[in-house]
């Protein structure tokens, strides 16, 4: 099922820092969730095409038209950090 390495890998991808205890807890919890869902594996899906979408909809389009933008000042005001008209973020690598 879920190993401790899986949890560490997923945490890394999500940029989450987990304590040793948390890794233990999440390994168990994620394992239980997958185990619960695994009941679905018992179904024979041989002749069932993969489902692309749950709603019976297709070809939902909008026209290529420009509408109102947000006021940049309002958006930047809510950012944790900014510099002039830019968002400011920590170094990436």
């Amino acid at each position: 099922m879920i190993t401790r390495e899986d949890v560490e890998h997923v945490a890394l991808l999500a940029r989450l820092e987990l304590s040793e205890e948390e890794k233990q807890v999440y390994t168990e919890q994620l394992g239980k969730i997958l185990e619960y869902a695994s009941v679905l594996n018992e179904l024979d899906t041989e002749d069932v095409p993969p489902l692309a979408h749950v709603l019976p909809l297709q070809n939902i389009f909008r026209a290529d038209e420009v509408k109102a933008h947000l006021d940049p000042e309002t958006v930047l005001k809510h950012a944790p950090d900014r510099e002039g008209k830019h968002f400011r973020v920590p170094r990436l690598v």
Partner: protein
Amino acid sequence: MKGYEAVIGLEIHVELKTASKIFCSSSAHFGAEPNANICPVCLGLPGVLPVLNKRVVEYGIRAALALNCEVARFSKFDRKNYYYPDLPKNYQISQYDLPLAQHGYLEIDTGNGRKRIGITRVHMEEDAGKLVHQGTVTTTPYSLVDYNRTGVPLLEIVSEPDMRSPEEARAYAEKLRSIIQFTGISDCKMEEGSLRVDANVSVRPAGSQGFGVKTEIKNVNSFRALARALAYEIERQISVLEEGGRIVQETRTWDEGKGVTLSLRSKEEAHDYRYFPEPDLPPLVISREWVEEIRRTLPELPDARRERYMKEYGLPAYDAGVLTTTREIGDYFESCVRLYPRPKTVSNWVMGELARLLNATNTEITASPVKPEQLATLLKLIDDGTISGKIAKTVFEEMFNTGKDPQAVVEEQGLVQITDAAALKAVVEKVIAANPKVVADFKQGKDKALGFLVGQVMKETRGKANPQLVNRLLKESIANSDN
């Protein structure tokens, strides 16, 4: 690269020239103030719903048809998860297993004739925002983000690993740009980032069938840089193998200044995009009627136009190829030929003087100060003997610099060709008198000596003399002096 063979595939992204973004109504235009073209959808705020821009699908199908692809009957979007601040949602809406189109190709010219390069797939996705670093990405203290580009529609066009040299890769990229540019769906400007090229390259012993370990090269900002980066990387991989080393699968960045590729990620960071179907966007069912309707809007493409130029105008393959690099160059050429129906002469001027001055001044052909009508008029002035072919270049340059009509330049600068034998006679006599040695050489059968004398007369008349007339007058005068 003795004993080795390179295997190259390219991933090319083109930004589509739509008014609005792919999944929201924010403007997709380049060059606005930072973070001016943003809305809750492209910022990835909670609870928003992306809705697909119909024109993106139309443009995508147009590109797919121009690249000889099969357009899917059923297509869908997927989420590609990755954590990077240029995409505020932490995922990019892209297409994974059911792309818009597959199985296409285009043809390039190589030293050994035409070669078909396969196109694996064409898919739609959203662009990411623009990051601004102080210095390089690894040394900057922090980065700035502009989300204007986030959500601008992109097509990703993936080739088969069919190219065997940097030159073939460059020819493919240039041909693809021509085709896409002809369809009118993108500006395809590498310098503005509306066309971006990533290259996958590996090497293997010549003649073998398997693939070596590949590296991916990013950050090539011109077609020339693409060829240089590939040439460097191929040599680097061969050296590593020759020294008994192993190629590491990694992403490398091209350093234009140093002329080297550098490893972008020090340790192997396994990509784990965890693609899954995008639940916010219903799938596409693309009818054949729609595809055919779009096919009818396709303009004449570069290869067809090139063929026509060879057939209809009798141009050499080289000329026809150069003139169909962009739609605008071809349009200019054709406008001029309609007024001055000697295609090869027009071709020489468009590829020669015009291209030279456009390049030197970094001007687009559509903004050329010399219009096709003016070039045609200039060429007629040469034919009717008003000016010499040599002077025409001077006139053309003046036209280019001032935008004036050729007649105006010729009159203002007194460049009308001297075709009056009486007016030239004195100069001819003077040149003969001043060059007795050359005249003697000519009399002894050195035909080249006459060329020198013609040159002297042209110099004396500042290029205005009619060369055929000068030729005749010189011969006559020299013959007469014998009697």
